[in-house]
């Protein structure tokens, strides 16, 4: 356990000093400051930023989660592949440290950074709510906790892809695809597990949505066919059984992680 925590804390230390994370925090602060300015200091802003919507909601469900996805990928795409390729891992593995401890330590380092970023986002969103006097959205902390959980799953998958494939970009891309695949597959799981016919169209639509190039979907998007109707079908199916979804998510992660550990144990290093 001590070895895992040592490796994790070293990884957090390194991530903290990378320009990328500083850049991410800076961009976040600029976005939030801009939104606050718009809502407080200009008439145009005040009309655009309806108090009922609330700045906290904008900050929590808008651009920032997209940025945190990019940050999660950035902190995990080089997690294991690079240290294995350039020999940094060899020095650690030459110590009484098993390979799985090294990988788990690196992953925990990424998760630590992601949780820290999400906590910062939640505090910012709550802060914005206080500043614009709309009050702190009671869901804001729960929302960011769920985001942190999802992004940790993404980090785990990207980390393990970086273990299997040396190239960080391919690891990031394939890791994200695997992560995204969890959604349509979980919808299919619901269909199979519940035998509920109402799940069928949503599973098919969700799967088709993920595998169809977005260019082909743009006419649908303009015609509004991708609007609330589709969302309600998909949401209805996906919220049908949250415990089943959670079970699926954990099982899916366990399969990816275990397979990667087993392969990593057999993989040559250094």
């Amino acid at each position, binding site marked *: 356990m001590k070895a895992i925590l040592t490796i994790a804390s070293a990884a957090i230390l390194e991530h903290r000093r*990378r320009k990328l994370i500083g850049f991410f925090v800076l961009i976040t602060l600029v976005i939030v400051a801009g939104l606050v300015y718009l809502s407080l200091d200009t008439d145009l802003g005040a009309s655009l930023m309806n108090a009922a919507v609330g700045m906290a909601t904008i900050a929590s469900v808008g651009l920032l989660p997209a940025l945190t996805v990019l940050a999660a990928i950035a902190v995990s795409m080089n997690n294991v592949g690079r240290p294995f390729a350039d*020999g940094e891992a060899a020095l650690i593995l*030459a110590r009484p440290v098993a390979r799985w401890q090294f990988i788990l330590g690196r992953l925990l380092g990424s998760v630590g950074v992601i949780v820290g970023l999400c906590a910062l986002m939640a505090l910012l969103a709550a802060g914005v709510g206080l500043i614009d006097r709309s009050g702190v959205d009671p869901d804001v902390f729960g929302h960011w906790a769920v985001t942190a959980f999802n992004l940790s799953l993404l980090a785990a998958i990207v980390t393990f892809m970086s273990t299997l494939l040396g190239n960080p970009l391919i690891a990031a891309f394939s890791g994200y695809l695997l992560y995204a695949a969890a959604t349509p597959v979980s919808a299919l799981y619901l269909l199979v597990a519940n035998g509920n016919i109402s799940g069928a169209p949503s599973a098919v639509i969700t799967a088709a949505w993920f595998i169809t190039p977005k260019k082909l979907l743009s006419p649908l998007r303009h015609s509004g066919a991708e609007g609330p109707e589709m969302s309600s079908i998909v949401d209805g199916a996906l919220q049908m059984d949250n415990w089943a979804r959670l079970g699926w998510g954990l099982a899916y992660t366990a399969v990816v992680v275990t397979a990667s550990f087993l392969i990593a144990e057999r993989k040559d290093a250094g």
Partner: protein
Amino acid sequence: MSAAVEARDLVKTYRKSGRGIHGLDLEVPEGTVFGLLGPNGAGKTTFVKCLLGLLAPNTGSLEIFGSPVNRAGARVGVGFVPESPRFGDYLSAEEVMRIHARLIGIPSSEINSATSERLEAADLADAPKRVKSYSKGMVRRLALAQGLLGDPRMLILDEPAADLDPIGRRAVRNQIVEARERGATVILNSHLLSEVERSCDHVAIIHKGRLLATGTMPELVPEGKDLETVFVDLIEAQS
């Protein structure tokens, strides 16, 4: 004299090149400075990597102080200095040393003294904050310093004198002497025959993944000959 390292019929073959180790039997006596010699591609580095658990042998057995190398515990008391050391770019020399000190189980109360002592000996006490700004020589000195942390029972040096100036080479030699004096086993993997001749008391010559010769320096190098002549004669006889 008991064996610090024992390899029996060790095989590790790389699928693409077919190179590697093909049935190596080797014993490294405890407390010796053991030179591992061989031309490029002989399998020396492969052997070292198998020893450290970085590569998994295809077949055969390999033990450090009686423990199979596939157990992480076998590497307790082993220091390693690689040919091309790499550390986290955003860490300082002190942080690198602290991480390794924790990994080898040095008690928290002793980490400060153990790391600062080694950093001073490596002339890195006032090194800049980020390892990525270090020269090659500084990175090598840091690698040597971390390898010597906790006074390891076995020190494995992979081409330790490469890229070092004469002063750096002397420092490496001094560290080998220091390790030998406290009874540690040193495995020196080097192309520099003069360095091996100077530092080692036992030598093994490997060629194409097999052991050609092993023994003490006087057993292997008769009077009137030098190590280079013996080495070249042996390799040419195989070609």
